């Protein structure tokens, strides 16, 4: 019997399996020639990462050595690329000569995708695919800097492997969280945290702009925000593309990959393909599990047996020590889906199951992945989980599951974490006091002073009591922010500072949120707390804001908007008034109204027109009036010494100064100021959040007024001699309010909780503290004191228009 001539292009993981099947079942039946572009035979490519990390050697991961091929009579042509195929003559052409085939197998795998950034062809810019790349990375060590573009599976394994060698690694990722295709944002946050714990720097939402070189060698990566990241090596791990060039030239049907049917047959007779180079039923592949299935099917087909390839659900793990994550199935698309979320902050565990109807369709977990395969099986088997739904998330071992514990965040706090900010009392001090016999809140207050001042940390002190004493302590019921959490606003505020937490994902995970990403009640509050406490570290999230603050205009009942430009201190000019009049004409503004805040409101502007009307007003020197914000609204003034016969100080001038300094600041609720030139108080300063009444001897500053749902007169806080002092006191008290108050408490409500005595202590008596508060306010203003209208006109004007208009197309 003449042997059947089989030629294989590519000695990869998929074709390797085919060869195993064939030579095991019918060692004498085939005459096999194996080409490989790499100068070696088949090795376990996925184990390159452990080799990089130093846990294994190349020798450990070779699956087929020279002897293996020799024993099976396989002709190896390694280091030789197939350059052409003559299908009519059934001949394959390599650099060292032709080979005839009866059956041809493509196993060409895929090629790493290289972003065509300027400088991508510099020496030192590599991908992560083969042994050469791995060796290049292994040549890096202490003192070297490497940038990895891509925060997916490969990029992170590369980063972790090099970090383990002492290399200073930075990962640059374009999306909002790591491994976004396999993980949700919560698991992505935990992954990021543990990678940062390994010394890896991670930059999210970072766009690469250019690779900078010197003498033909890579020197740095430049991001589009101007950041320059110096590096000795740059690894691009941004995706792969099926290697199809040769197949295309040979005239095979190729889409994203080489088209194959269920038997792995391509569009040409006697030509087959397996592995990452194929496209089957619209799908391409990037993990080995389905490739092994394909290899088995092809082996059986060539042996004349019946077999068909079926796509299955896949699961992913990351091969980085200490990062236990698992994801399987699908959490996109589809109707009637339901989430089950479990978080255990003290163990750093997050689990989420996605259920559709009575079936589990997806699972993501981090930290505790023991049940991963069980869930994966439920997904693959499409098991009816209706009966076990309640306990499902606790895995196969649990009958009675535990509810997530709101105390675990406090239990997990390190001893030195500050619980009471006013008096600088740490968790340890409180625990010591409890051990010494202070077993209720009153006793803690008197022995440690914790929660004895402003009182906002009361809830946390009680939790420390509960964690330490267990059932001996009865917790008073507290009002949580919303259904997503058991924590109160006050507790969350303090924990954000003391843990510290600097992102929404961190808050959700570390404080055991019960939902995936909050709701319309907690998200705006958390966004505010984060930006108030971490102005430099946290980036404001417009998607966690109510429409008015996201679009910088007030939404009206018919979906149009009102536009209110600032009129500093209520003073305007003929030119400004003309520009307002022109804008009203140009954009068909139905109503122009003088507001109760000494400025002009243009009501009824269409959403699409906003950037245009803003641009016009900007050009006339006007900026957003923030009439929509939980932030500084207006500073109402009277005419003061400039014109009034009773004026004692320049109330108009001070009002304008204050409005300019405070402009753009976000506060727990809206903030309105008034400055009157004398006690006749024409600016109604004594019913504002902060009111200043000028007198001969200086400035009387009072706070906590209101004239809305509640009407309140302000309470006097202090009198100061100079305008400079007045400004500093206003900034300090504003900052104290920003740092301490519950979201949506106006100053008068906050005042009612913390008391005037305490506020006076902080901003009037303690001069050093006053200055520190004012300085923190000014620091925050380096980020927020600007005009959002101008920013939006420049950066995202196009987002105000519909993304598509199908009214015309659909009519065809």
């Amino acid at each position, binding site marked *: 019997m003449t042997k059947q001539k089989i030629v294989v292009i590519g000695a990869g993981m998929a074709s390797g399996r085919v060869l195993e099947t064939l030579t095991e079942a019918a060692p004498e039946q085939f005459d096999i020639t194996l080409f490989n572009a790499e100068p070696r035979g088949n090795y376990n490519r996925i184990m390159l990462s452990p080799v990089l990390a130093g846990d294994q050697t190349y020798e450990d991961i070779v699956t087929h050595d020279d002897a293996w091929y020799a024993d099976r009579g396989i002709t190896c042509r390694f280091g030789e690329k197939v350059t052409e195929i003559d299908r009519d003559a059934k001949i394959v052409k390599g650099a060292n000569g032709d080979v005839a085939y009866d059956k041809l197998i493509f196993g060409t795998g895929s090629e790493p995708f290289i972003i065509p950034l300027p400088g991508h062809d510099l020496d030192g810019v590599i991908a992560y695919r083969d042994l050469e790349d791995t060796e290049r990375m292994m040549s890096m060590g202490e003192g070297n800097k490497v940038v990895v573009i891509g925060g997916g599976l490969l990029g992170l394994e590369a980063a972790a492997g090099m970090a383990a060698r002492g290399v200073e690694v930075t990962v640059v990722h374009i999306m*909002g969280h790591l491994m*976004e295709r396999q993980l*949700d*944002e919560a698991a992505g946050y935990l992954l990021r945290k543990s990678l940062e714990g390994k010394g890896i720097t991670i930059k999210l939402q970072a766009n690469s702009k250019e690779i900078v070189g010197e003498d033909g060698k890579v020197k740095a990566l430049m991001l589009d925000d101007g950041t320059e990241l110096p590096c000795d090596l740059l690894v691009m791990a941004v995706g792969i593309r099926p290697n199809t060039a040769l197949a295309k030239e040979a005239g095979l049907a190729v889409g994203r990959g080489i088209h194959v049917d269920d038997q792995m047959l391509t569009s040409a007779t006697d030509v087959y393909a397996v592995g990452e180079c194929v496209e089957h039923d619209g799908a391409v592949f990037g993990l080995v599990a389905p490739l092994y299935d394909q290899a088995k099917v092809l082996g059986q087909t060539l042996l004349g047996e019946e077999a068909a390839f079926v796509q299955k659900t896949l699961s992913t793990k990351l091969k980085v020590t200490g990062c236990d994550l698992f994801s399987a199935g699908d*959490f*996109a*698309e*589809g*109707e*009637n*889906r339901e*989430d089950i979320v479990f978080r255990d902050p003290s163990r750093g565990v997050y689990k989420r199951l996605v259920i559709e109807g009575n079936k589990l369709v997806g699972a993501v977990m981090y930290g505790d992945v023991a049940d991963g395969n069980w869930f994966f099986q439920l997904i693959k088997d499409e098991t009816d989980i209706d009966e076990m739904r309640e306990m499902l998330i606790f895995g196969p071992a649990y009958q009675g599951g535990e509810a997530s514990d709101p105390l675990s965040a406090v239990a997990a706090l390190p001893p030195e974490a500050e619980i009471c900010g006013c008096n600088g009392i740490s968790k340890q001090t409180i625990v010591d006091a409890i051990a010494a016999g202070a077993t209720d809140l009153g006793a803690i207050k008197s022995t440690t002073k914790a929660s004895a001042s402003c009182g906002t940390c009361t809830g946390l002190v009680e939790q420390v009591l509960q964690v330490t004493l267990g059932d001996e302590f009865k917790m008073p019921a507290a009002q949580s922010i919303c259904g997503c959490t058991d924590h109160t606003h006050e507790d969350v505020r303090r924990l954000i500072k003391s843990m510290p937490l600097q992102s929404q994902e961190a808050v959700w995970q570390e404080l055991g949120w019960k*939902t*995936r*990403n*909050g*709701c*319309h009640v907690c*998200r*705006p509050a958390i966004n505010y707390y984060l930006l108030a406490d971490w102005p430099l570290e946290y980036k404001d999230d*417009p*998607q*966690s*804001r*109510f*429409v008015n603050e*996201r*679009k910088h205009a007030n*939404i009206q*009942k*018919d*979906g149009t908007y009102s536009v209110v430009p600032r009129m500093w201190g209520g003073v305007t000019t003929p030119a400004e008034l003309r520009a307002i009049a022109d804008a009203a004409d140009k954009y068909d503004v139905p109503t122009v109204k003088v507001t109760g805040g000494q400025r002009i409101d243009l009501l009824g502007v269409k*959403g699409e027109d906003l950037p245009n009307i803003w641009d016009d007003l900007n050009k006339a020197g006007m900026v957003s009036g923030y009439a929509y914000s939980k932030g500084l609204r207006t500073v109402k003034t009277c005419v003061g010494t400039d014109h009034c016969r009773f004026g004692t100080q320049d109330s108009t001038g001070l009002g304008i100064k204050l409005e300019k300094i405070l402009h753009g600041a976000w506060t727990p609720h809206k903030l309105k100021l008034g400055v009157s030139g004398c006690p006749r108080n024409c600016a109604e300063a004594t019913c504002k959040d902060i009111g200043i009444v000028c007198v001969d001897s200086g400035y009387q500053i009072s706070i906590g007024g209101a004239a809305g749902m509640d009407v309140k007169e302000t309470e006097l806080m202090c009198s100061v001699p100079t305008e400079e002092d007045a400004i500093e006191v206003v900034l300090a008290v504003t900052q104290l309010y920003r740092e301490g108050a519950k979201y949506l408490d106006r100053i008068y409500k906050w005042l009612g909780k913390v008391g005037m005595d305490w506020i006076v202590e902080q901003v009037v008596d303690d001069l050093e503290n006053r200055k520190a508060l004012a300085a923190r306010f000014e620091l925050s203003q380096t980020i927020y004191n600007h005009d959002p209208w101008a920013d939006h006109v420049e950066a995202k004007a196009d*987002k105000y228009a*519909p*993304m*598509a*208009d*199908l*009214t015309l*197309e*659909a*009519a065809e």
Partner: protein
Amino acid sequence: MSWIDIGDINDIPLRGARIVKTQVGCIAVFRTAPDEVFAVSDTCPHKQGPLSEGIVHGQSVTCPLHNWVFDLNTGQAQGADEGSIPTYPVRVDGTRIMLDGEAVSRRTAA
């Protein structure tokens, strides 16, 4: 179905929405945190609030006018509120968003 390319997924902010004008009215196309995409009517059945301007959480949106919450899968109002919004077939091909042209043309709507 006849899929129409309406734009790139990156043109919609994460946990946000953009509108598409169609013969059956404005349709809000949502993008949730894990890059799921939903297309529903932009108009709240309560008092016609623009849902594309609401806060997106999980697979729900909260109407910006009076806080009704809708499940984007089914279009059903959640909790005590009663009402629903039409949903439209949409899919993502790579990064392109495809909306079903038949479902949003007047012919099939009538």
